[in-house]
């Protein structure tokens, strides 16, 4: 990229996150297909391919891809059921959609020169806010004002309860922030770090072996992080959903 042409230690680790229109250089409208759009679409295609192509034969003795898909399905379903309860299973399709999208987007983002849609706070914030708003709406729809009992900790001593309620309300509203920044921050940091190492490698000549080895190590770590962050996002969604369905602690 730019650093090679200009020489010296001129690394732009954040350039990889720039959103560009796919076609031409025109101004960015809300409907303009961008590199982000392309990689979101590829993530969707990858998920669809993984889920549907592997299960085409509906084999009783599964092939390896089918086994993976079955494991993902059972894992997510058990997670939703154990965390959010049986009535949480109604939301299982959405939760599976979000998990698969985030996981594949994270993993595809590790392909060199690709783009990670989930490294953008806009995407993760939209995902987190969707969860936040839905959970709040479901909570009030199911329990009416009783949903506010979530903030009134009846097991605490009475004088402490208003204080705790304040803290609980604040933490409730901070949830979408931490929920979204955790994912975007992890993705951004990992990719930026790899890019920085790559920049070092570009100017170190033979010594480039060190950053390249480091990149390989970080890459493995990032693969793990990609899946773990998808899992964390999903399980937090389940936990929040549990609060909406069963606000009593």
């Amino acid at each position: 990229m730019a650093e090679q042409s200009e020489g010296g230690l001129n690394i732009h680790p954040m350039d990889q996150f720039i959103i560009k229109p796919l076609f031409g250089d025109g101004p960015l409208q809300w409907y303009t297909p961008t590199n982000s759009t392309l990689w979101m679409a590829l993530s969707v295609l990858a998920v669809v391919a993984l889920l549907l192509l592997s299960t085409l034969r509906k084999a009783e003795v599964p092939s390896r891809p089918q086994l993976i898909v079955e494991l993902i399905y059972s894992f997510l379903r058990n997670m939703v059921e154990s965390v959010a309860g049986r009535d949480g299973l109604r939301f299982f399709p959405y939760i599976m959609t979000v998990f698969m999208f985030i996981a594949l987007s994270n993993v595809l983002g590790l392909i060199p020169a690709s783009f990670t849609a989930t490294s953008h706070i806009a995407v993760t914030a939209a995902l987190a806010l969707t969860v936040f708003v839905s959970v709040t709406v479901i909570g009030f729809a199911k329990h009416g004002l009783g949903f506010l009992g979530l903030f009134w900790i009846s097991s605490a001593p009475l004088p402490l309860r208003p204080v705790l309620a304040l803290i609980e309300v604040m933490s409730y509203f901070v949830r979408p922030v931490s929920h979204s920044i955790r994912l975007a921050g992890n993705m951004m940091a990992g990719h930026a770090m790899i890019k920085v190492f790559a920049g070092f490698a570009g100017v170190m000549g033979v010594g480039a072996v060190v950053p390249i080895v480091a990149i390989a190590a970080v890459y493995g770590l990032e693969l793990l992080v990609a899946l773990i962050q998808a899992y964390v996002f999903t399980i937090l969604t389940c936990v929040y959903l549990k609060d909406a369905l069963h606000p009593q602690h």
Partner: protein
Amino acid sequence: MATATTAADNAPGIPQLDFSTFPNQIFWLVVALFVLFIVVKRVAIPRIGGILEQRAARMKADLQQAEELSTQAAKLEEESRRRMAEAKAEAEKTGAAAREEIRQMTEAAMEEASRKIAGMASVAEARIDEIRRNAQEGIVEIAQEAAYEIVSAMLPGKEDREAASDAVRRRAGSEAQ
């Protein structure tokens, strides 16, 4: 930054905080999630759930069948054991009957044989008696003859056939008693 884009111009530091790209990203995210959600909910989940259910049903059916077969096998074993016992009892009965029959036949044969033997013995005894009587008579006759000869040799002229015969017969008669 030779290839500066509009996004980079607006946010020289962090592209993530370039708010002008937010509507675009969110719009496409909604589209992507919507498409994916439809596919996952309508196709993927029913299909995978179906596969798992089918497998669970198959396993359950197989286990049930195995259990049925095992109880059937146990029943068959029980049945065969019962038949075995029956056959053994039958065989014992048959054997006992056969032994009894053999015993009776042997007894009958023994009786028959001892009767025959008894008959033959009495015949033989009669014959032996006769032979002995004949032999005795022969001895008496020889003795009479001898007695006569002895008397005639010792006392010539005094020999008496009648008296010698009588004397020998008397003697033999008293001997025989």
